[in-house]
Each structure stands twice: as structure tokens, then as C-alpha cells.
């Protein structure tokens, strides 16, 4: 379903991704772990279509070339990104935002728009998933939300948008354990045979609640190790140091590691 091959990303003179390969089949959940600065978030934004990235290589969803598309076209194709730092939009209520988003992708796909009433049903169901108070819908998008509320709002949006591919960028960061459980159970409930997920995280913690099919270790812009969910546990015990030492493409650091 998602096919990524030799993906490179530079921002200005800085090379962030140095040839990333990844294949995700329908229904699979892949976790991507790695130390700070390894390129995890850049990978997510490269899939979502952030401007200012110099992107090379291939990324296709169901055979369609994502890299040729505008962000909104990718959304219509079924890409959803859960933001690490959800953006505040003062004065725009959450419900209006969500309905506009849903109808935008429906319109792009040639489907009918949902009426206000239909939407309310969809939203209600989604809100139960993330244990949200209904007055949430009337508040401005993310404005004045706590960290936990923002992340739950991302999962709520995912539930409403029903994407083909969900890319969750450090959805667990800044969450206390209760919020983490709510988010994880929301994610779990949205797993399905036709939906794939790429879950980006710094810690193993989230993966206690979301058992991924595969775990990949991203270091210096490349996947250096892949395995099943036990790899995450291993990382938790041993950290990323072993991978940092052997990460190719950064001779100086490798050299330094060898010396020590």
C-alpha cells in the first residue's frame, strides 16, 4: 500500500533523510523509533507534503505518486498526519473545522458532502473513542487546549477523516499515562484491515498499548534495523547507542565511536 524507496530529504543545505526504504501493507501498524534528530518527524512531514523540503526518491500510496501531490491532494488520497505540535486556529470552532475538512476530502473524491446532522453523528461516535466532552466541538481549534487535549483532538480528527494511511508523529509526547491510554485505545479502535498506520515515537511506552506489527529504527536518516515488536523492548533496555555507532553516512561519528 505505502511504498517508500530511497527517500531523501534536504532542508536547505542540511540532509535529513539519506535513503529511507519502507513498505507498509494494508492493515499493518509500523512503529518508527529513533533518537532525537534522526529524521522521524521529517519523514512524517515528507509524506504529508510540507513545503520547503527538497525531496528525492519514491513514495507511493496505492501506486499513486505522493511526492507529486499538494498536501490537500494527499489528504484526499487518504493520508492523515497526526501532528506532534497541533496548530491553534483561534476563532474557528472545532466542529466547523472538522466538517470542512471532511467535506473537502469528500468533494475532492467526488463524494457528496455530509450534512450538518450526519456530521454530528460521525463526530459523536468519534468523540466517544477519545473520551471527549461534547462542548469540545464548540471550542476554537486547539486554542487554549492542554497538551493532552490537543493530542486527543488529533485522534478525533483521524476517526472522523477515516484515512487510508495514518502517520502519527510523536502522538505520545507530552502525555501523562491516562491521556496516553486514551490516545492508544483510540488508535487501537481505528485499526482495520484497510487502514495502515505509521506510528512515530521516541519511547517504547506507547507501544505497550499499541502493539505494532513491525518496528524500525531510524538513525541519521536511514532505517538501520527492523524487527517485530520485541525490538522496541530491546531498544528500551539498551537505547540507541549501538545504532549510533554503526550508522553509516556519518564517518566522523562512526570513527569516533570506533575509537572509543
Amino acid at each position: 500500500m505505502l511504498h517508500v524507496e530511497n527517500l531523501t530529504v534536504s532542508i536547505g543545505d542540511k540532509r535529513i533523510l539519506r535513503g529511507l526504504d519502507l513498505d507498509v501493507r494494508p492493515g499493518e501498524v509500523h512503529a518508527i523509533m529513533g533518537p532525537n534528530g534522526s529524521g522521524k518527524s521529517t519523514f512524517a512531514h515528507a509524506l504529508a507534503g510540507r513545503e520547503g523540503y527538497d525531496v528525492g526518491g519514491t513514495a507511493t500510496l496505492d501506486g499513486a505518486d505522493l511526492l507529486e501531490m499538494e498536501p490537500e491532494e494527499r489528504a484526499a488520497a487518504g493520508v492523515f498526519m497526526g501532528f506532534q505540535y497541533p496548530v491553534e486556529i483561534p476563532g474557528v470552532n472545532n466542529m466547523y473545522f472538522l466538517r470542512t475538512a471532511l467535506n473537502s476530502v469528500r468533494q475532492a473524491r467526488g463524494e457528496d458532502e455530509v450534512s450538518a446532522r450526519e456530521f454530528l453523528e460521525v463526530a459523536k461516535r468519534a468523540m466517544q473513542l477519545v473520551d471527549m466532552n461534547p462542548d469540545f466541538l464548540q471550542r476554537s481549534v486547539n486554542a487554549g487546549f492542554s497538551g493532552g487535549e490537543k493530542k486527543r483532538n488529533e485522534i478525533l480528527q483521524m476517526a472522523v477523516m477515516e484515512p487510508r494511511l495514518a502517520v502519527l508523529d510523536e502522538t505520545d509526547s507530552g502525555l501523562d499515562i491516562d491521556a496516553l491510554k486514551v490516545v492508544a485505545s483510540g488508535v487501537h479502535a481505528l485499526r482495520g484491515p484497510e487502514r495502515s498506520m505509521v506510528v512515530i515515537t521516541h519511547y517504547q511506552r506507547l507501544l505497550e498499548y499499541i502493539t505494532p506489527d513491525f518496528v524500525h529504527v531510524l538513525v541519521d536518516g536511514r532505517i538501520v534495523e527492523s524487527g517485530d515488536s520485541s525490538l522496541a523492548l530491546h531498544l528500551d533496555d539498551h537505547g540507541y547507542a549501538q545504532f549510533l555507532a554503526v550508522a553509516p553516512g556519518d564517518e566522523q561519528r562512526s570513527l569516533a565511536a570506533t575509537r572509543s
Partner: protein
Amino acid sequence: MTSQSPVIEELLDGSYEYGFSTDLDTDIAPPGLNEDVVRLISAKKGEPEWLLEWRLKAFAAWQAMDEPDWAKLDIEPIDYQSISYWAAPKPKPTLDSMDDVDPEIREMFDKLGIPLHEQKMLSNVAIDAVVDSVSVTTTFKATLAEAGVIFCSFSEAVREHPDLVREHLGSVVPFRDNYFAALNSAVFSDGSFCYIPTGVRCPMELSTYFRINSQNTGQFERTLIVAEDDSYVSYLEGCTAPMRDENQLHAAVVELVAKDRATIKYSTVQNWYPGDDNGVGGIYNFVTKRGRAHTDAKISWTQVETGSAITWKYPSVILQGDRSVGEFYSVALSNKRQQADTGTKMVHIGADTSSTVISKGISAGHGRNTYRGLVKMLRSADNARNYTQCDSLLIGKECAANTIPYIEVKNPTGQVEHEASTSTVGEDQLYYCRQRGMTEEDAMAMIVNGFCREVFGELPMEFAVEAQRLLSVSLEGSVG
């Protein structure tokens, strides 16, 4: 904001949607201004002697005045002698119904999306349509007459209700008030008059669409609204103008009188031609708007200003009576080379008076937006309160916003609160919306409309929708 994407610039490049010109057979005076021209205008309109005298006094006062230069505006010198002060569509017999209105004029209003057909969209709104200087049609007169409400052109009011006009004309904005008010008083051509009798709640919203149609004619309207004790009126003023190469001067005066316990709600959507990308053309909008609120009365100004090359406008309230209330809700957008210096004056005279000011300034392109507001509490104003909130939104890096509050409190019991903020429409906001499937244009419109929500909430429903659309059109390339 560190950089502006080409896409945003493209979005801001919406060309003027209403740039067309209708060919009406116009009766126009030669350019120039002197006492004879003032007499000509008065004679053309068949005015009584007292009004001519008032005009001449105003003209004399104007001649002795200097143009104001304190606003943060770059204004090309205006040659007042090159302007024609009188233009009227050819006189026509009095119209009995909408069907008698010139089809060309009706077509023009259709293009602007203003439905003149009574039974259609605005079934609850009376429209006094002003094309250039003469009011050509007034609807819903019968319904209003039944309630005792007078709503007619200014000229008609001078003929039919001379005592009411004479009593209130210049009572809130004297002709000596300022340069442009003096000019207007000398040469005003027409406008609207509205009178709500004691205890009457006006049965419909009153609406006037002003429109500048002839080239090189300044438009100087004069609006006078008198609300007697315990009455209520909501008045809508909407403006669009065709595209022009020459700057057109527009110096209007609006006077509101709210007597004891009366409420006047005055809403404006202003979309005059802002000039092209280089600032060529466009309307100079120098307007004096002021209301006097008597005991327990309330005056509320709501304005959405998206047009004009230069806007110089400070709708104000004199809170004269005890417990009177003044409100000012404003959205001002400056795009391309537009400049706006706008705000309000709240003058507290009575005890327990209160005023609220909510100003939303949006600057895009090379636009310059200045909020200038005065809150003045006189010694007599015990326990007066003011709350002011000024928010500026910047789109791109070439624009500018200023907030200039003046606060004068002479009574120690007065309370003044002022809040100000400046924010930008960020790439991250646009990206977030686009990741959720919205086009960049829709995202921009949503963000800007969200910023203005408090003000739009004050507009009557149909007007709020129109204002949102106007704001989107002014910001985006979504033409036609």
C-alpha cells in the same frame, strides 16, 4: 514570519470583482468648487433658503481650514478644483414600483449581488438605493409608513420633513468639526434620512447601498438617523464601486441621534475600489460618523472595511446621557497598497456610561493598518467604564500594523481597560488545514474569518455572510 510563500502572494492577488462601469446618461457639473457651485447644488435640489445658508457657512469654514495630516497615511495631494461636485442620473418621473427602475441600474445591482426584488432574498429589508447622488428607488415605504417610520432620501426629507432635518442637521457633527465634514456640509448631494418615532421598534432592517458610478465625481452623502425615546432601529450600509483609474474622493457624514432609552445599531460593509497592485486608482474614504446617546440610550457601530485605497474613519459615540452605552466593532482589511487609519472615539460625559471597542485589523500585501482610538472620560462621567481590545493580523512580511490608543480620564472613578495583540497567519496554520484536505484559499479564508468572529457576530445574519464572502474575495484569487 520569516518568509512568505509564492502561494500566499498569489492568494492575496485577488483582482477586484466588482470592476465594471454602467453607462448611465449623467447630468454632470463642470469640475471646480466655489460659492456658485454650492448655490448650483442647492438650486438643483430646490432647497430652502436656510439650507443654502448653512451650506455657504460650511463652505466659508472649509476654506479657512487645512487638510488634516496627523493620520499615518500617505495621501497624494487632492486637487479640490478638479472634482465635479454634482452628478445625477437624468431626472425620471417618480417611480411607482420596482418595475419602473432603469433596467441598467437594476442590472448593475444584480452584478453586485444586491437583490432589489422585494420578494426575494431581502424580503425583510428596505433598500434606499443611491446611484451617484440621487436616490432612485425606495422600497417598503408603505410598511414603514404604517409604523410611522420615515426612511427616505435626504433631499426628500428636506422637502417633506424640513423641521426634523433642520432641528438635527449638524447637531452631532457641526460643519466646523473637521475639514472633510465641512466640505461635505457645503456640497453634500444626497443621502438617507431616517426617523423612528417614540416607542417604535422599526419593523425591518433598513439598508442603503451606496454606489459611486460616474468618473471623477466625489460622492458626498449625508445620513441622518433620529431615534426618538424608547425606539429601536438597525441600519445597514453597504458599498461597492466600479473600477477607476482616477482617485475618487468620498467624504461622507453620518449623524445619529439616540434619544432616551433608544437603540441605534449601524452596520457598514465597505468595499470600494482599493486601487491596483501599485496603488493606482481607488477611493479615498474620508468619513465622519458620530452618534449622540442620551440617557439610557445605546449606539452600536459595526464596520467591515475591505475596500478603498485610503480609509480615514472614526465612528464615534458621545455618551451624553447617564447610563448610555457605546459600542464599536470593526474589521479593517488593508491589502496591496491600501492604507487604513481607523478606529473610534468614545466620549463619556454622563455617569455610569460604558463603552466597548473591539477592533480587528488585517494587513496583507503592502497594506498599512492603523487603529487610532480615543477614550475620553470627562469630569462629569462618574463610574464610566471602557473596554478596548485591538487585535492585528499580519499576512506576509511587507505589511504593517499600528495601534495608537489615546486615553484621557478626568474622573478618578473611571475604569479603562485596553488589550492589544498582534499575530500572523502562519505557514504552519495553512499547512495544518491543507493536511486536513482544505485548499490553501479555503484555509486562509477560514483562519481570517476566525480572527474576525467576534465582530461578524455583531452583524445581522445576511450581512455577516456577505461580509465573510467579501473578506474571502478581498484576500483570495477566487474571482467569479
